């Protein structure tokens, strides 16, 4: 059964039709590559799934139940995690503070609950170790390299056991070694039965880990194929519009 099912989802910003009548479903443990040119509507689509935007039209279903969200926190409560394209990091905070932003660990009782720095540093450290990233939980994000910043954003998705992880260009700024780590992480997620949506402009990454590829052009879905049944050439053609639709 599908974990997530989108039916006729559209989103417009004023006159701009960012996403137009998109439907698809993802099963547990499936990795879907989402590709498309700049401005095709990929980020807008995953932001709707992550509760950042509400769709203008259409419905979303999670495990067969309708999914209506008003705030990003609700998406996380449903087990939907996202790595944002711009990473959504606060430079003036530490790595650990960024990882836990919006769901800080606290200790104490009632109104006298204070931030649990120790637990957050420890847990963030564990996650960075798991990601094999040399990122220190106590460092300010301001002073971090592109790869470390990406690790911080990815670490957020590992705080709780998710059902769906949405990754919006998670490999854009990182080294070859760390790309391999991220792709490995995606495989781990898949093996644990977690569905993954990977947005990427890098053809090899998508063909490496994805089971399926969805191509968007100007807000519309123009292809949805098993990886084995497609090829990089075909996907490139679909992205540019050389191939109209399959």
């Amino acid at each position, binding site marked *: 059964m599908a974990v997530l099912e989108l039916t006729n989802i559209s989103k417009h910003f004023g006159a701009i039709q960012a996403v137009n009548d998109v439907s698809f479903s993802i099963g547990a443990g499936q990795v879907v590559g989402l590709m498309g040119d700049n401005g095709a509507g990929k980020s807008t689509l995953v932001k709707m799934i992550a509760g950042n935007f509400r769709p203008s039209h259409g419905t979303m279903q999670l495990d067969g139940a309708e999914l209506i969200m008003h705030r*990003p926190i609700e998406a996380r409560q449903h087990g939907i995690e996202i790595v944002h394209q*711009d990473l*959504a990091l606060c430079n003036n905070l530490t790595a650990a503070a960024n990882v836990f932003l919006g769901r800080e660990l606290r200790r104490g009782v009632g109104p006298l609950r204070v*931030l649990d720095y120790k637990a957050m540093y420890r847990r963030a450290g564990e996650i960075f170790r798991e990601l094999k990233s040399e990122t220190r939980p*106590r460092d300010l994000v301001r002073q971090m390299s592109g790869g470390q910043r990406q690790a911080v954003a990815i670490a957020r998705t590992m705080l709780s056991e998710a059902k769906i992880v949405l990754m919006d260009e998670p490999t854009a700024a990182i080294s070859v070694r760390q790309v391999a780590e991220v792709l490995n992480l995606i495989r781990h997620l898949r093996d644990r039965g977690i569905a993954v949506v990977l947005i990427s402009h890098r053809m090899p990454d998508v063909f490496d880990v994805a089971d399926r590829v969805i191509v968007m052009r100007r807000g519309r879905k123009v292809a949805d194929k098993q990886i084995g049944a497609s090829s990089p050439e075909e996907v490139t053609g679909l992205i540019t519009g050389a191939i109209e639709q399959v």
Partner: protein
Amino acid sequence: MAITLDQTIGQKQQSWLAKILGSQTFWVLIAVILACIFLSFATDSFATTKNLYNITRNVTFVAIIALGMTLVIITGGIDLSVGSVLCLCSMVLAVVMHAGYSIEVGIVASIGTALLIGAFNGILIAYLGFPPFVVTLGMLSIARSLAMVASNNTVVFEFGPDHDKLLALGGGAWFFGIANPVLYMIVLALITGFVLRWTRFGRYVFAIGGNEHAATLTGVPVKRIKVAVYMVSALSAGIAGIIQTGWLGAVTTNIGAGMELQVIAAAVIGGANLAGGAGTAFGALIGAALIEVIRNSLGLLGINAFWQGTFIGGAIVFAVLFDRIRNFRQSE
């Protein structure tokens, strides 16, 4: 020995000493201490109990509001209305008590006024997207005008049945001879410091100043926090107004005029960054202290009071210079 991943992750970036030496607040504190030492030797009248009592008490009004202002500045905002809000809240207290109500009623009315103004500022800024500068500039004008309306532009110096209670509240020294306003300031600074470091609210205040968009995306209730921050700022002005009324024993419609600049100066000297994302409660106190020491010393050294603005302005530029130097060093 090879450095393992675990060691790297476990490493602390800076020792606490490096952290202190790198902080603007620390160097401003040193400047305050040096100035005090210098003045104790250079003049006979600085290190007297009476003068120190005066200094510490004079610091408090600016310092208390600077605490609230620091929160606003950390979120990347600004509140220009605090001087006028202080005036309006003092006047509401004075008028209500003058009309024969108890001090409790007066304080509730005054605090209520402050919270209402703060909520008004905050809602316009957070929910309607007004620039903080414009909204609070408007409120600067509105609040003072309302104070004039409320009092018919007269001086109020009779506070009804609880007159003496009010004067004791602001003018007394209930604890080891420390002036009451100083006690309030210390308590409020401790609360502010605690909130900034140990609560989720404080964490969100910093997050909004660091990257408001990121805070929104990660589910921080940005709008509500912003409204709260402007309410705290107005509240701090209201509290300072109540205390000042008790201390002065009279309210005119020009108290607190121009105070917003001193308050912003104190916050900035103390390390609050107008671009957002940085600031401390302790810094606000230190900044206020430096301004007051400069003011006081000019008088004692017999320097024409017209120079005051030059020295305080110089202190603002100088304090931020440390921050710039540190940034230059890091970017090299």
